[in-house]
């Protein structure tokens, strides 16, 4: 019963948060709603007894990505709905272009395919499975990261190092030539 409660509440949090993100006209508010959605996803991980993943979700997304997005929105001015086209409708940058419409149509098709693929599995009568008894995933993840998936691990670390060096290069004080 408790598992069901946890699942339903975190699923509701995720879906409601995501809907609020999409429907909110204010970018800053959307980012705040995204926070609830991400916390809900971490709750979903907990129901699947992926404890480490849940905590990582909190550390990376809530602590890092959301703050980064908030910074980006704030520094780029975010929410000025001043640009209105001649019909008085708010102008949105990628609207009204053959290219963008084609892209949007294609991606919508792709999304529909993916979603129908998921939904087909849901509608099939799959016997109700039991989750294996809870065991800590930290050791397994650590082992897999440095054995089977060591290449991905190293590549991502090189990527991060590159990002770090790039950031240092941009942020470093320049000598003013006089």
């Amino acid at each position, binding site marked *: *019963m*408790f598992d069901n409660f946890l699942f339903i509440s975190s699923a509701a949090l995720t879906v409601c948060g995501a809907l609020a993100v999409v429907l909110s006209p*204010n970018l*800053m*508010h959307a980012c*705040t709603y995204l*926070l609830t959605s991400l916390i809900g996803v971490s709750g979903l991980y907990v129901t699947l007894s992926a*404890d*480490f993943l849940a*905590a*990582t*979700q*909190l*550390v990376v997304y*809530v*602590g*890092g990505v*959301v*703050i980064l997005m*908030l*910074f980006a929105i*704030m520094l780029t001015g975010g929410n000025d709905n001043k640009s209105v086209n001649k019909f008085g409708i708010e102008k949105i940058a990628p609207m009204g272009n053959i290219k963008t419409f084609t892209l949007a149509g294609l991606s919508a098709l792709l999304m529909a395919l993916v979603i129908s693929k998921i939904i087909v599995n849901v509608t099939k009568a799959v016997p109700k499975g039991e989750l294996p008894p*809870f065991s*800590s995933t*930290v050791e397994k993840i650590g082992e897999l990261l440095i054995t089977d998936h060591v290449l991905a691990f190293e590549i991502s670390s090189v990527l991060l190092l590159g990002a770090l060096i790039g950031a240092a290069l941009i942020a470093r004080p320049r000598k003013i030539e006089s």
Partner: protein
Amino acid sequence: MNETVVTFFSGSHPYQVVTELLTRYLGFNATGLLTVVTFFVACFVIVNVMALVGGLGTYAERKISADMQMRQGPNRVGPFGILQFLADGVKMIMKEDIVPKDSDKMIFFIAPILCMAGVFATLAVLPFSSGFTLTHLNIGVFYLLGVSSVVGVGIFLGGYSSNSKWSMIGGMRGASQIISYEVPVTLSIIAMVLLGGGLNFKDIVGAQGGLPHQWFIFHNPFTVISFIVFFIGALAETNRAPFDLPEAESELVSGYHTEFTGMRFAFFALAEYVEVFVLCGVAVALYLGGYQVPFELSDTFLLHNKIGLPLGPARILGQLLEVGGFVSKTCALYYVVIWIRWTLPRLRVDQLMTLCWKYLTPIALINLVGVAFWVYYFDGESMWNLIFKSGAAAAGGH
């Protein structure tokens, strides 16, 4: 499953009797119900006690600062002015709740709650004792890091939503400071996780002992440096002086909570004081032996068999001794935090970032490698053991 406060209580006789009685009278298995009730009561007690600790923190801050500046401090309300924080709390509740006209109302409402929620969620894993901890989560330290990062979002949003320049600068400083200092703090914690052999606070504390030479801080030369890095980082993460740039009162009025009044402001203040306590508690658990009591006085077996206490009181007394050990060490660190605040001047922003990225982060990285090397090479033995062993070997190996 993880050990929780319920696991501790369900081992006792009265709890089992109550479970049986409830099962008989209610007509269904009451274990689940009783678990929920026990958790609820435990959470209620801990949250309220910690709110009290936060209030007493403001009192301690004022009294200790007064002591350091040869003043009296609050001394009118109650004996030695100890009820001052209650009077302040009442004042906060009675105050008019002012919301700036151009503020972002929704975020203005959410920001203090985010701060509070982030801090109080960390209490779930704070190891007060081996039994009275809400839960010994198997990813305890990592969970704590994750949840406490919500505080950064709260501070940033608080600064943004006020629609005021001072708050804005304070919030930006707060967010960047917290993100930056998370790096050396996390690296120092990872070094301790390496020594303790688990992310669980129970493992880390269990690998230490009650006496100072068994603590992780004196385990090897690297851990001493690691503790210093962690402590500096923790000061910066809780926005305490000399890192209180987000609320630098001489330049930013009051930083990110300038525009907040009444209870909203009280939420920010409470969150800050409780967070200081939590991080001091984490420092104690990771470095200073946590809830371990010297000579294993808290051992149920010792209290029950040697001293002759009945089993129930023996267990409770052992836990209380552990809580006492933990809280007294944490309060000592809390004193140091306040002491530092009233001793050192504030850093500049560029000095803050320089300290973090050019000094603390490389030191923490090297430390991590050093601790890993120590664990591998000396099999995780502390330097006192090694010294004693080599001494014994020099004396003939007896």
